[in-house]
């Protein structure tokens, strides 16, 4: 019974997704779309409620595949919240609202499994469910060649990376003979990873796979193309929740820091520097955000390297905080930018005049950008502060230095967005902005939340039970 309670969120999501899919096939008009939207929100909310009421450390379900410690539950709730947010704020396609919402829910299901995986198999399964949904979501508007190309690219490369990941897991399994994460961690610590070369290699390949999902350097090449190809909300989802879920799934492997620490250090440093450098002269807004997301993964990895070390907030706590902070900003930014309609790729020049036509939207974008850049009074500032504080506490001095240097480079392209929003004169006659009251209020609420948490970060720490 308690196993069933643990599995309840997944069940709700799986069945709910299918329900939405089935309902959506009948007819599509605005009423139905709205109905499906709210139904999806209810389903996701139900799953979140079920998750939230799971007692931490209750029995592992499904032979230990799904576990529920407090940290996993927190992660799960976060992802569901982001998902619900996306469903509400996104502009669902008129013609296929059912599929759209169903796929989002499936993706959420994948994230949920990822966040709570207790076994290598569940981890793999979660990643794949998530990825499969995302392939379709990315190329959802397949009449656009870019969407098609992006979807194909993501599919091929994700599969390529998954193959690395699963092969690595196979080597690990061949070395230790268990799929259960707790068991694995125990065996690793008793046997010592250095004495299992095959497992070392396997974990190396595993990092390749994870690195791809996180778009960490050097597995980041897809990010710019795919983000640009995706519908705004989906890009936001990929950047925030999808990555967060992989991070959550990666946390049980913290023991890797001892053996693969150098590799992770390099990946983190490279991501922070290269990501920001790549974005430096970019003129297309979504690509800018894509490059910045590469850098942000680098920052998050600093927290990962710090692990459970840290003064006040541990590296893991900082990571969770950062995932939330980052998700709010990046999902908000992608969605807000999707309100600006255009028939070509959105360039920074297209942002001219937004501040005049819609001051509220412009201001929200400003807040999101400030948060991404890590400048007070936005929450992103504290996210970085915690991460780097944990990093310093764990003895990594140079990573925060590199990270902050990278973010200083990054400021350059963030500023370019702000400059075009507010400071560039000239008319932009093609500017068309459309959003529903619901959408704009959600965006404003998000921006307000970013500023509120940016001024009172303790409230968020308390809410996330990070202390």
């Amino acid at each position, binding site marked *: 019974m308690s196993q069933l309670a643990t599995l309840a969120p997944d069940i709700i999501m799986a069945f709910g997704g299918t329900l939405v899919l089935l309902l959506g096939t009948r007819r599509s008009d605005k009423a139905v779309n709205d109905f499906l939207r709210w139904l999806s929100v209810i389903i996701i909310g139900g799953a979140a409620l079920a998750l939230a009421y799971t007692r931490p450390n209750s029995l592992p379900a499904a032979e230990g595949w799904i576990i529920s*410690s*407090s*940290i996993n539950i927190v992660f799960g709730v976060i992802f569901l919240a982001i998902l619900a947010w996306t469903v509400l704020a996104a502009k669902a396609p008129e013609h296929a609202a059912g599929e759209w919402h169903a796929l989002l829910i499936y993706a959420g299901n994948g994230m949920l499994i990822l966040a709570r995986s207790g076994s290598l198999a569940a981890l793999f399964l979660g990643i794949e469910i998530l990825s499969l949904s995302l392939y379709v979501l990315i190329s959802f508007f397949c009449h656009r060649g870019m969407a098609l190309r992006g979807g194909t690219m993501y599919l091929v490369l994700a599969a390529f990376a998954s193959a690395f990941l699963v092969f690595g897991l196979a080597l690990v399994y061949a070395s230790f003979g268990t799929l259960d994460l707790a068991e694995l961690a125990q065996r690793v610590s008793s046997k010592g990873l250095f004495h299992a070369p095959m497992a070392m290699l396997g974990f190396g390949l595993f990092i390749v796979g994870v690195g791809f999902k996180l778009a960490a350097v050097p597995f980041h090449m897809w990010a710019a193309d795919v983000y640009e190809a995706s519908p705004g909300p989906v890009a936001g989802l990929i950047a925030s929740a999808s990555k967060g879920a992989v991070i959550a799934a990666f*946390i*049980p492997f913290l023991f890797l820091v001892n053996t693969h*620490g*150098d590799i992770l*250090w390099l990946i983190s440093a490279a991501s922070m520097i290269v990501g920001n450098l790549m974005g430096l002269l970019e003129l297309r807004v979504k690509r800018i955000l894509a490059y910045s997301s590469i850098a942000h993964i680098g920052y998050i990895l600093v927290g990962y390297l*710090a*692990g*459970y*070390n*840290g*003064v*006040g*907030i*541990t590296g*893991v*706590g900082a990571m969770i905080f950062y995932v939330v902070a980052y998700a709010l900003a990046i999902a908000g930014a992608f969605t807000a930018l999707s309100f600006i309609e255009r028939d070509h790729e959105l360039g920074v020049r297209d942002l001219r005049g937004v501040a005049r036509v819609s001051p509220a939207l412009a201001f929200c974008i400003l807040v999101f950008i*400030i948060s991404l850049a890590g*400048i*007070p*009074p936005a929450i992103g*500032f*504290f996210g970085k*502060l*915690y991460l*780097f*504080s944990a990093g*310093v*506490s*764990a*003895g*990594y*001095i*140079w990573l*925060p*230095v590199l990270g*902050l*240097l990278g*973010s*200083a480079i990054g*400021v*350059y392209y963030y*500023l370019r967005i*702000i*400059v075009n929003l*507010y*400071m*560039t004169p000239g008319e932009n006659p093609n500017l068309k902005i459309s959003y529903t009251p619901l959408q704009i209020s959600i965006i404003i609420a998000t921006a307000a939340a970013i500023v509120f948490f940016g001024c*009172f*970060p*303790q409230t968020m*720490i308390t809410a996330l*039970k*990070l*202390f």
Partner: protein
Amino acid sequence: MTLLTLIVLAPLIGALVAGLAVRTGPASARWAALAATGADLLLAFILMFFVRESPVATSMPWIPAIGAAFHLEADGLSAVLVLLTTMLGVVAVLISWNEITRKVHAYHVWLLLLQVGILLVFLARDIVLFYFGWELMLIPMFFLIGVWGHEDKLYSAIKFFLFTFTGSIFMLVALLYVYFQHARQYGMYSFEIANLLKTSLTETEQWWVFLGLFIGFAVKVPLFPLHTWLPDAHTQAPTAGSLILAGLLLKTGVYGLMRIAMPLAPAGATAFAPMVITLAVAGIFYGALVAFSQRDFKRLVAYSSISHLGFVVLGLFIGNAAGWQGATLQMVNHGLATGGLFLIAGILQQRAHTRNFDMYGGLWRHAPTMGAFLLFFAMASLGIPGTGNFIGELYVIGGAFQFKWWLGVITAFGILFAAAYSLRVFIATMHGPESPTIKHMNDTTWVENLAMGILVAGLIVVGFVPRVVTAPLFYPPDTMVPRDGREPATIAAIRPGQIVIPSLPLISAEPPPASFSTPEVRK
């Protein structure tokens, strides 16, 4: 107790009111901003009154998870700088009264937010809060330059932002390191400056910590040769932006050195002192010479700031009471005098649409009041006795003389150089044959006169009663120079220290301390 909170909140409320009143006419924003800054000025005067007795403090938990508190405290130094901030805040609103006609509401919102950030920096006794305020200043200033600036505004705004932001990075890492060391040594985590001061750091650690902090603050000061953002930013900013940039933002860098860098890493300060002193003295002359070669009014004043700030930094690092007090005085004086010069530059640009000296000349006939003000500010800038600048420079020179006689002698000649460019400012605009550009120049309006009059009054008061600035400086004795003029406790005896460049390991090999992991999150 709530006084300090009110001081910080007043401009914030003003910003909210100005922002929300966006549907009404521009006057509403102006009056809201004036009311907010005026109230703030009043509060600052009250604060000065209280601070004479003892430091005023207020503290409440902010982010207990990491040991950060909303801890504001005003001792003499903070109170003086808060007074300066609020004073210049009022002046900034006044001077913008006629100048700003575009997006008036947004302008005042940014102006007031900027003031919030500056006040936080001057009042915070908690590193996180300090850094919060520090970074909070960036965006408003960026907007002030970028939206309301002059022809080359975007380049300058971005340059300003990138320089100061990059500098602050090193500062943050250094602060985090001290925070971590403190936690390790005392088993409690706290960002309170008072607590962090107890941390014992080895000389090597102090060297690094000071380096990090110094880079952050020196960019802001700005110390030669990190000054290159400053002329551009000053030149392109709107008048009030230049005023606040010169009068306050540069001071935050100095204040950071005084309040954080030097107390936190005294040995580091000692080791760096020879280099910093060299740079400061070089800056005095370099700034003055380059200023002299400028043709752009604002650029000239901007370079003069580098020169003046050289005096300030020199005063800090020679390590005696005279230098310390001179630096503090000079901070205030520079804010008022250079601020005044920027006001004139702004007024001129608004009327003549140029900042080029070649276009001016013979202005006195048309604008005698402006001429009188300019004359006063130029004289103050070259350190005429009777204005505060003289005393500030005298203290610094005297301190330098006490430290090393030849240093005092060299520094004294900085005054001559200051005279060269200050006179040039005045003569090039007011004297000479009448320039056709300014044929129909109006004299200053009463609002402008009021704004500049505040600065003049401040300079004269400081010039004859410098004790209003220096007398309250003696609290608390931990970080400030003691009353009887003994050497400051923080940099006990500065001597040319041996600079040892230590190496930090790339990746920490030792196991992290277990005591700080949080069991609740641990799986």
